[in-house]
């Protein structure tokens, strides 16, 4: 039996996760449905959303904030960061613009999180 904290929303429910010998995963303590798939994923293939900034020319700031459009495998955190450094974008950029499509084959895009 393992205890973990669900990170899907700011509530941070304390989950009790039981991995049965036949592979079935029982989740308790979740405040909503999203806790169950989170717990399962966290045991088998933990993922995270990455937020950072990329270089931008001609904007009100020198860096543009971005995020992964969906969660990516936790182990690729730093690799994704390195991909971000390879690009430099040009203003104006609209919020939601895809700056890198399917980064490192994860299925997630790198998108701008603001207009600049």
């Amino acid at each position, binding site marked *: 039996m393992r205890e973990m904290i669900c990170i899907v929303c700011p509530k941070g429910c304390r989950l009790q996760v039981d991995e049965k010998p036949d592979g079935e995963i029982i989740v308790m303590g979740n405040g909503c449905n999203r806790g169950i798939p989170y717990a399962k994923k966290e045991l088998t293939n933990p993922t995270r959303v990455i937020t950072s900034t990329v270089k931008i020319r001609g904007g009100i700031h020198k860096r543009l904030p971005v995020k992964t459009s969906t969660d990516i495998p936790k182990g690729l955190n730093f690799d994704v960061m390195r991909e*971000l450094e390879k690009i430099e974008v040009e203003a104006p950029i609209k919020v939601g613009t895809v700056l890198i499509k399917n980064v490192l084959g994860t299925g997630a895009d790198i998108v701008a999180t603001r207009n600049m």
Partner: protein
Amino acid sequence: MYDVAIIGAGIVGASVARELSRYDLKVCLIEKENDVSEGATKANSAIVHAGYDPEEGTDMARLNVRGCHLTEVYTKELDVPYKKIGSLVVAFSEEEMEHVEMLFHRGNANGVPDQKILNREELLKMEPNIGDTAVGALYSPSAGIVGPWEFTIATTENAVVNGVELLLDTEVVDIKKEGDIFTIYTDNAELDPIQTKYIVNAAGIYSDAIMNMVGEQEFKIRPRRGQYFVLDKSQGELAHHVIFQCPTALGKGILVSPTVHGNLLVGPDAEDNVERDEIGTTKERMDYIRETADKSIKGINYRESIRNFAGLRAQSDRNDFIIEESKSVKGLVNLAGIKSPGLTSAPAIAEDAAEILKNIGLEMKKKEDFNPSRRQTHFMSLSPEEKAAKIKEDPKFGRIICRCENITEGEIVEAIHRPVGALTVDGIKRRVRPGMGRCQGGFCGPRVLEIISRELDLPLEDVMQDKNGSYILVGETKNRGEE
């Protein structure tokens, strides 16, 4: 070849520079740090003492009283913050009242004007928050508070404008004398060794080291550390005068004073046996200061503390200021052991130094065109019409950078480009105050850094907080995770 080289750009060295700049002389002011006012001048009680404390007949007494008067004059000439708020030496017992009376008589003997002994009732009227055990006080209306680094910076600026050469980032490493000429060797690779006829040693806690470079050990400096609290302006209303305590078996007592900008200053204690670079604060001493200060003023809320700092006094092994030509080295004038009332006495010490130089052979011809004045923009003190006009003239005055003290970009840029301009974030802080307020640079810091970088054409990561080596940023973000 210089006529005079002054070593040390604290308040004493700067005052000597300005004094000598009244004459037709080739003078340089040598400072090892990247800015003036970086030693004890930066970390003291900021008090202009009335002059009852030094023993009668000493140089300290004479120079204190003269310096107290000159400070009032010079701060006006140089546009330096100064307030003549008067001081109170408070007695908390009848025994201490005897001490207060002794100071009263001594003050009179020293020439301190307008002193008065107050009973508790009169004291309470002047200071509603005075401690419950206070029985009376010595009131000296001629005492005041000043901005010590502002005074030093403005004094140096005026000296430079009147012809003195300021050499920053220049640490004296050796001094040789051949015949009548000194050669000063420094660590500044861009300068040739400095040749000069006379040296004025105003090197603070290093003045004995300077002495020993070229002569015998005529005195020894033993740094004495003092720690302080600076409290938010909301606490600055608690006291209206400089409030001293009488010395007890435990020490000289802790003072509580408003500062010239409206904060409250509490401290210092006195700690011997510290190294020359030990300017850290400690919990034990800070606790002691708080407990002891509580006697003077009721209700100080230390949760409103915004900063702690410590300074090193240049305590010498003699009982008075050392203001003399060296016995073992002709032409070297020592201004050493300038502890309290050093700040107050500095303008008068400078007069003495000039007098000594004259007496030992320096030809001093007064300049016709000495300009004693210096001004800087104080945006918030302008009327709305003046503010509007100033912004029209230079839009940078329309952007407030320091929220706590309401300082504009225009004032910051001015502080960078004037003579003896700011090169660091703390240099800006000392000249125009961003970083002195309750946010301690949290809001204005990045903006000040940007302005310095832009105005001096320096990469952001090369802008220092204060002394060389105090970098703030390490480089651009590069999304670099584990390498």
